[in-house]
């Protein structure tokens, strides 16, 4: 579960690191990915395992579009840039939730009998639910892929360079908007993957994103904004803390542990665990 949190959070971390923007519609991206998975399963009987890349592709397009249509303009604001981007993306989140209610109704849906759903696997005598385990594997693979992408490809380097100095990058002929749109696309694709996997073991409804979004913010901030590795580590910590809290406190309070750890960490290290700024 922790690695899945990491996977949800890493897209957020990428976007933040790239341009100092927190996407308050991140949870709604997740919700959308879960619906995409649900409909592919219901209408075309495509198992979430196979549709995960499709969900990722769909959310890539959504992410890039959101950047080009909304965030690009939010960043141009001359005053209150921080507030403008918070409320522009928050407004988007409300619209997405409204659209989900309108088109998909407020009913709870699930993906029954997927290849992964409801099965467990025994690893060294411990029974682990398959979807979560698979999610962890996908998350590790996605992190590896992202790491290579950022460090080994031209586009990755452009991404990194734009993050460090958008002005200088423009001088050498890199289109800032294309790079940022790509960053948002990748952020979307990552949460798309996470959504597809989560659809196999979690109910799908218009507000589902909200609860995960807050955990994603905590995960990112815990690791330190802008640090992709931090988001990964933050995810693992959040997962462990949640599991530990569940042993001590009633299930309805399990998030308290996560929040408390976040506060503790930032009070001691105000930039998060791996933040460098």
């Amino acid at each position, binding site marked *: 579960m922790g690695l899945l949190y990491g996977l949800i959070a890493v897209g957020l971390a990428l976007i933040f690191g790239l341009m100092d923007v927190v996407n308050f519609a991140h949870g709604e991206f997740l919700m959308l990915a879960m619906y995409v998975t649900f409909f592919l399963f219901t209408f075309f009987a495509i198992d979430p395992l196979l549709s995960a890349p499709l969900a990722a592709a769909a959310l890539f397009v959504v992410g890039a579009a959101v950047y080009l249509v909304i965030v690009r303009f939010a960043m141009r*604001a001359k005053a209150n840039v921080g507030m403008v981007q918070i409320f522009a993306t928050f407004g988007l989140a409300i619209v997405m939730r409204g659209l989900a209610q309108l088109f998909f109704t407020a009913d709870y849906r699930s993906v029954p009998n997927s290849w992964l759903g409801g099965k467990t696997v025994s690893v060294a005598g411990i029974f682990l639910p398959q979807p979560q385990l698979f999610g962890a594997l996908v998350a590790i693979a996605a992190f590896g892929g992202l790491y290579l992408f950022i460090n080994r490809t031209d586009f990755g380097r452009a991404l990194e360079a734009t993050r460090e100095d958008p002005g200088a990058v423009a001088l050498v002929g890199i289109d800032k908007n294309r790079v940022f749109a790509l960053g948002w696309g990748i952020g979307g694709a990552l949460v798309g993957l996470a959504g597809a996997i989560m659809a196999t073991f979690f109910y799908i409804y218009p507000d589902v994103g909200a609860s995960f979004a807050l955990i994603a913010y905590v995960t990112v901030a815990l690791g330190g904004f802008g640090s992709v590795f931090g988001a990964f580590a933050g995810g693992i910590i959040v997962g462990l803390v949640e599991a530990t809290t569940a042993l001590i406190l009633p299930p309805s309070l399990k998030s308290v542990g996560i929040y408390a750890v976040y506060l503790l960490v930032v009070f001691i290290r*105000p930039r998060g665990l791996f933040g460098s700024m």
Partner: protein
Amino acid sequence: MDTNFVERRRRDLITAAGLAAVAAIVPLFVKDVYVQNIMVLTLMYAALSQSWNILSGYCGQISLGHALYFGLGAYTTALLFTKFGVLPWFGMIAGGLISAVIAMALGYPCFRLGGHYFAIATIVIAEIGLLLIQNWDWAGAALGIDIPVRGDSWLKFQFTRSKLPYFYFALALACVAWFVTWWLEDSKWGYWWRAVKDNPQAAESLGVVVFNSKMGAAAVSAFLVAVGGSFYAQFVSYIDPGSVMGFQFSLLMALPAVLGGIGTLWGPLLGAVILIPLTELTRSYIGGSGRGVDLIVYGTLIVLISLALPQGLVSLFSRSKAKGATR
């Protein structure tokens, strides 16, 4: 320049008094209970947003967890009243003081955090408060508290026959929040806050006690919001954790200020006057189907206004007045 400023402040005060007087007469002509209800909510949100604006707008510490103080006010009043029979007026003051103290206690560690770390800490703290109340059986847990009707009087702050008393209290609250802002704007504190917002390091070097001024803003802001919460509890006579302490509520409180103009005297009021009736009307006219159209309209407006007018609707007025002036 100086005389202009004094002149402007006097004009602000006269305008506010005029508006308040007009607002006070309106319900004598508008008898429709539904409309009166919207007016009460509009004034309440104006007061809340104005209070939020003190910490987040003037002092620049973006709080997305003010629902905590609203909930504290509502719960303190409701619990004292239902469990011990303490009059809501005392509950209101108690709630305000508790909130102010808690805001300062939380500010102590939180004000060292910058930007997004601070904002997320405020969300997380409010969320912890929400979860604790939801699991606190004595306080009604997730079901909330039904406030019993024990009369119809100003003493008990309960009115069953008419919404007018609630309206006048909400108006008074909005006036107080506005006046406190007006008064602080030109005080030592107001200048400190703007200095802290613009450049904390420079402010510190000029002898502004950054930390203390943040604490002051937090206390005033939390106190006023908690009084709003106490009022709300009496007004709707039923509260539950999700509706008074949820994250959504923190944002709802901030929105009027953001849309109207953050860190401005008139922004929160203007934002509330436009936003709240709009929210209520879209909810009742097109949201009745429960199919989310109201959310779509509402969300689209937020996106458009925040993109088109980053300084808020107030900037429309100031721009036309100071034509040719560079922004």
